[in-house]
């Protein structure tokens, strides 16, 4: 392979990206060296096993990915703004919708939520860390490396272009030659390891590490939603792992699982992909439901209405989510019987979701509602998500889907659920728990601007797309003719897209503004919260979270303590020494070897893949012989930390 094949060449946009990447790198290198931050970076972040820091790193990465995916989105919207535009050619457009979709789902939505889960769940259940802190770091680094591997594709080797669904035979060697599609396979495979480990880690954490007295039916709703999500992850992700592995075999070693030749079954890929893919959409929505539940309850000053109904509907969803996958390919032609069955299961799964909407409404009913920004996002969610849900039921009717399938109607539908559900949830959760992570709130006034700009922009962008879809505009086309008459609505949609882009920039500005000027919190209870994460004396909990593990007596324990004036004050004799895990650089190193491995496979350079593989196995062996029992935080240190933070 020659160098000019290795680097992507010939497109001014890409050269621009090259330049900005080099400049950013140089800037970071300069800053870190100038201010002597390397050691700090290594000891405080790269080697940490603290769930709060890992959570923050997840969220920072997710926000960066939101930026990247957002730039992709706006490039596409620019190209589509007017008929027959020449901004992007068809291949480039294909690459961009592929990276946009993949990044938004796998490297933005999931890590954002997993980041919030990391920060919040151990605090909510009164634990000092997760069950396997070291494994948690491995999760983060495999996710991060997978994401980086996928992201460099657009400057090195070329991006995948077969859509985020990568249907065969389009994604095969014959129709998608070159390393692009391999990036998809290995980026997702490596990140998938991290997700699976997170699933196991948090399942065990929630089942085993709850504070005394916190029975399952006393857990906060966000913890419940995380628990159910982890169960879905554990059962759904192996399907993706296997499917990706089989496609990798097809591409690298000439096997015939999904190929056209050799009795391969190309449609089996679609089948397996969606067997994972539909549970995946619940993986990215259930935690958001949990976030909204917490926020709506807090700012209505009421216990969540129908707590148990919420839980049962989530458990039902967990089971159902494995029974609806065919609705993604009704038009494949599996026949009337198959389509009818999956049509019915799909409509049925709407019922538990509907139950939840009513639970939120009844929670607010007669509550003293405070219109804080997290609450605004939650209200915006209810309204907009219902639009997404209703159009979802329309798509569920197999016969009607023949009309909607592969049009902008579908594009609009899934953005209404993914943005109004998942993204609103991520923003709401980020703002709500921001004081827990950084010790101050984001500015509320700017926050309201962000909310209105984003929500209005969102509707301006995607509402017209329903009508474009009904008018026959297909999805994944890079341009359309003047005569089609789709021009005006597309222009409107693009304007809305840019409004969302601006809203994102204002959000980032708000982070900077609040960092500079926001009033620092003096207590741990920034919003008048109900659950244990708000009960720490300091705004930001110390690394061991709780000096004394709380004893829980019921739902909304902290809230009731406050009402009854019984919030415990710590005294020196409550303090015992605390056992904590040691930091470790091994997960980071293991991640780096994963990168070598992935990169080798992407370019079919087996020597490099083997080096990476040996490295990964080596770190595993190293870990197996490492007798690291963690360490104890002395009573004096705990007392001192608690006094300082009081």
């Amino acid at each position: 392979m020659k160098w000019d094949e290795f680097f992507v060449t010939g497109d001014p946009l890409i050269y621009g990206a090259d330049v900005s990447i080099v400049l950013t790198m140089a800037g970071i290198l300069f800053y870190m060296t100038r201010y002597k931050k390397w050691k700090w970076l290594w000891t405080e972040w790269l080697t940490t096993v603290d769930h709060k820091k890992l959570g923050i790193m997840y969220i920072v990465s997710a926000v960066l990915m939101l930026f990247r995916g957002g730039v992709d989105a706006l490039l596409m919207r620019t190209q589509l703004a007017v008929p027959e535009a020449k901004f992007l050619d068809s291949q480039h457009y294909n690459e961009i919708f592929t990276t946009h979709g993949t990044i938004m789902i796998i490297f933005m939505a999931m890590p954002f939520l997993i980041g919030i889960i990391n920060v919040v769940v151990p605090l909510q259940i009164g634990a000092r860390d997760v069950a396997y802190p070291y494994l948690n770091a491995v999760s983060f680094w495999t996710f991060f490396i997978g994401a980086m591997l996928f992201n460099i594709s657009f400057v090195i080797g070329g991006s995948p272009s077969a859509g985020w669904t990568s249907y065969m035979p389009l994604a095969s060697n014959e129709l998608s030659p070159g390393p692009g599609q391999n990036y998809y396979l290995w980026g997702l495979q490596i990140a998938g390891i991290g997700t699976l480990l997170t699933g196991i880690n948090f399942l065990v954490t929630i089942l085993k590490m709850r504070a005394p007295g916190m029975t399952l039916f006393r857990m906060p709703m966000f913890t419940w939603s995380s628990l159910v999500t982890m169960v879905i992850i554990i059962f759904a992700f192996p399907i993706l792992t296997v499917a990706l592995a089989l496609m990798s075999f097809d591409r690298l070693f000439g096997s015939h699982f999904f190929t056209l030749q050799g009795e391969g079954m190309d449609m089996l890929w679609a089948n397996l992909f969606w067997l994972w893919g539909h549970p995946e959409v619940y993986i990215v929505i259930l935690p958001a439901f949990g976030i909204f539940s917490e926020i709506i309850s807090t700012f209505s000053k009421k216990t969540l209405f129908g707590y148990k109904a919420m839980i049962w509907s989530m458990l039902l969803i967990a089971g159902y989510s494995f029974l609806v996958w065919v609705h993604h390919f009704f038009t494949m032609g599996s026949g009337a019987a198959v389509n009818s069955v999956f049509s019915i299961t799909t409509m049925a799964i709407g019922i538990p979701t509907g139950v939840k909407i009513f639970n939120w409404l009844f929670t607010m009913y007669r509550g003293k509602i405070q219109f804080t920004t997290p609450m605004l996002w939650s209200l915006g969610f209810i309204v907009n998500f219902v639009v997404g849900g209703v159009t979802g039921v329309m798509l569920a009717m197999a016969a009607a889907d023949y009309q909607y399938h592969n049009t902008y109607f579908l594009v609009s539908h899934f953005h209404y659920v993914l943005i109004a559900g998942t993204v609103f949830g991520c923003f709401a959760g980020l703002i709500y728990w921001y004081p827990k992570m950084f010790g101050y709130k984001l500015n509320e006034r700017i926050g309201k601007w962000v909310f209105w700009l984003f929500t209005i922009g969102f509707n301006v962008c995607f509402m017209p797309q329903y009508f474009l879809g009904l008018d026959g505009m297909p999805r994944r086309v890079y341009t359309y003719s003047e005569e089609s008459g789709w021009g005006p609505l597309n222009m409107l949609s693009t304007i809305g897209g840019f409004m969302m882009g601006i809203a994102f920039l204002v959000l980032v500005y708000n982070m900077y503004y609040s960092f500079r000027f926001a009033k620092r919190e003096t207590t741990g209870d920034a919003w008048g919260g109900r659950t244990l994460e708000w009960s720490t004396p300091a705004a930001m909990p110390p690394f061991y979270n709780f000096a004394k593990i709380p004893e829980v007596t019921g739902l909304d324990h902290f809230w009731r303590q406050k009402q009854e004036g019984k919030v415990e004050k710590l005294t020196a004799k409550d303090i015992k020494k605390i056992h904590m895990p040691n930091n470790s650089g091994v997960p980071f190193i293991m991640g780096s070897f994963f990168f070598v491995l992935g990169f080798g496979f992407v370019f079919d350079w087996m020597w490099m893949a083997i080096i990476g593989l040996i490295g990964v196995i080596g770190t595993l062996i190293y870990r197996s012989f490492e007798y690291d029992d963690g360490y104890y935080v002395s009573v004096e240190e705990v007392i001192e930390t608690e006094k300082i933070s009081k």
Partner: protein
Amino acid sequence: MANKTEVNGHGGFPWKHLVGFVLSIVLTLFALWVALGTDLSLTWILIIIFGFAFLQAALQLLMFMHVTENSTNTKLTGRVQVGNILFAAFVAIVIVIGSVWVMTAGHAKHDKHDKPKTENRENHGGEHDSEEHGSH
């Protein structure tokens, strides 16, 4: 706290894991040999390797996945274990039976591209009353 009590509590050489590991590899190699190195009929090959697959799954559940572990100290663990196994069975059945059904019903069976054309037509004739032709 994390790993407080368990850190070095494993004790002894992990024979169980080693045996499980070796047996898994042996079963895999054997399946490979049956598929590539013998000239049994396709049906028999499938039956045998499916048999091995079930054996290996059982082996892994026993040797690595603590399926027999019975920590009765809390009622919860027992219930979680049972729920877990039932849900796993449910998902496995859905994946296998569901996929077979979806992939063999209606037009989807045309995916066997290498099959002689005539056979394809026959299947087609039997099924297509209820279906659209538009999707082809």
